[in-house]
């Protein structure tokens, strides 16, 4: 039964942003950057379970083998690698200004981190704990997604995405989506890529073909769409950062309803994701 109502609210310190599910799926970790803390919630009920103090977590993620937990500390310019089991700091990188989003190669050897204020994409080798390369990706890079042996990066300043060769870091393709292209997601069936475009002006969600990268359809979504989550019924839940709402979009019709939720909704996790196989992340399934 869905009522599209807020049923409960759990506290955090300051600015909860992105999430990660612990490998045993018992805890939903939520990054609170300016609160310098990682909050743990019950992924079924949303109840607060505890928190751990770590420096400035913004975007967070486990490597596919769950060995490491990697944190982009956007304000402090750190990429911190923690042990996946104990959450103890293993290695700190300072690869550029404003580390924004991240993803990994499926073999867990490499991480790819966008540097929002250096206009670069950085790749780290997590087996040797060294920086592999750093390339100019384009203006204000944000969302990062590994797809079919390539890395896709959203460029807010250029209104589109670039495809980057993960071996050498060269740019292989470019596709326009919309102004302020911010984050990128793959649906469960791997049929559609979604890019949220956060403005200025009219903001939208663009659906793309994951093979050709050609746009299939654009959905105008006001209020700065940020993260999305796709429900089993196909509806797309979209955080509207600047409208204090979550939009629930029917991708067939393009109609959506909105749920008022409070200041600056950012990451979205659906408890139905717990039923999915493989590693569950905000951006895709493995």
């Amino acid at each position, binding site marked *: 039964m869905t009522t599209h109502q807020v049923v409960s609210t759990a506290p955090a310190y300051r600015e909860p942003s992105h999430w990660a599910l612990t490998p045993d799926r018992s805890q939903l970790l939520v990054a609170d950057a300016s609160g310098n803390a990682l909050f743990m919630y019950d992924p079924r009920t949303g109840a607060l379970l505890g928190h751990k103090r770590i420096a400035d977590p913004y975007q967070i993620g486990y490597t596919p083998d769950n060995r490491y937990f990697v944190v982009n500390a956007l304000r402090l310019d750190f990429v911190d690698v923690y042990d996946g089991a104990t959450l103890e700091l293993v290695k700190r990188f300072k690869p550029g200004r404003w580390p924004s989003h991240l993803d990994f190669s499926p073999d867990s050897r490499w991480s790819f981190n966008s540097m929002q204020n250096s206009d670069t994409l950085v790749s780290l080798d997590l087996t040797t704990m060294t920086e592999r390369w750093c390339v100019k990706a384009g203006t204000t890079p944000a969302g990062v997604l590994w797809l079919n042996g390539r890395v896709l990066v959203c460029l807010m300043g250029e209104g589109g995405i670039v495809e980057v060769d993960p071996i050498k870091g060269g740019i292989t393709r470019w596709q326009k989506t919309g102004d302020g292209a911010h984050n990128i997601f793959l649906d469960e069936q791997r049929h559609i890529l979604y890019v949220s475009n956060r*403005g200025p002006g009219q903001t939208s969600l663009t659906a793309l073909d994951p093979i050709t990268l050609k746009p299939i359809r654009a959905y105008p979504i006001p209020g*700065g769409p940020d993260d999305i989550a796709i429900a089993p019924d196909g509806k797309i839940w979209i955080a509207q950062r600047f409208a204090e709402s979550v939009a629930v979009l029917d991708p067939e019709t393009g109609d959506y309803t909105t749920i008022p939720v409070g200041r600056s909704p950012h990451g979205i996790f659906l408890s139905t994701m717990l039923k999915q196989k493989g590693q569950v992340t905000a951006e895709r399934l493995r």
Partner: protein
Amino acid sequence: MQSLDRLFSIIAGYMDQWAVLPVLYYFHWMAWDDLAFDWCLICVYGLFAVLVTYAICVPLELWRPVERWPDKKAVAVDVLYTLLNRVGVVPIVTFVLFYQVQTWATGFLVERGFIPPTLESLVPFLLGRPMLTFLIYALILDFADYWRHRLSHSFRWWYALHALHHAQRQMSFWSDDRNHLIDDTISFLWFFVIGLIIGIPPLQFPLLVLALKFVESLSHANIRLSFGPLEWLLVSPRFHRFHHGLRAAGRNSCNYASVFPVWDIMFRTADFRDEYLPTGDARAPEALATGSYVAQQATGLKLFWQALGKSWASLGIGRAA
């Protein structure tokens, strides 16, 4: 409350999407995209605070004025002071500076293996109680402000600046922000350092200042109003007018608190007499009272310079007479 907050966010969201972001994108500053929304929110709050103050004070000043003036020429400059300080530039610059310095300080400490705590992490009870946390921040800042204000009456050079605030004889709800720029800068740094030490979130810092200033505006209003048995709780127009009384200008003053009179009670500087005195500073040059913005600033600077010289001559321990 919640729907009001939502309305602010929606207005700020429109401002951001259609006015601020296009400028940021034009200049290739889109990395600031996230923070631009906060800037807009600060503008909306500032504008709202001024409008609410206006809506409350104008009818009250008409209904029960302490003083009636033949014209309100001296008030006009106070309006300018208020708009400059509350809507737009000053609060946004405050936010950006506070954000940058806090980020720098946090990074410095984190690199040395120390994660700075927040008030809520030191007092776990405050987690999930943002209004209470906000109130505690306000209390701490107001306590600091009590001492800043009291000291500004104690030092000759400092009162030379603060005299601009006291010179106004037509004191109204617009008068709170009439301060010398140097005095404003000192207050700003004072708050800034305290805010950093207690770890106020960057967005809350300008909002706290706005909230405190809201009460300060009311307390400057030309209204015959005391809070009766609640005079000890919140600074009333009567309480602050007493501080602005001619006799209280300069060193031997009372009622220094801006928002919570408890500090005056605690440090024995409170005066709860039910009197409404004429305001102003008899010793202040006329330019400080009725001059233009520029004349007031220039005169304040001159007095400050002279006082600094005198203080210097008496080995920096000079006191306002």
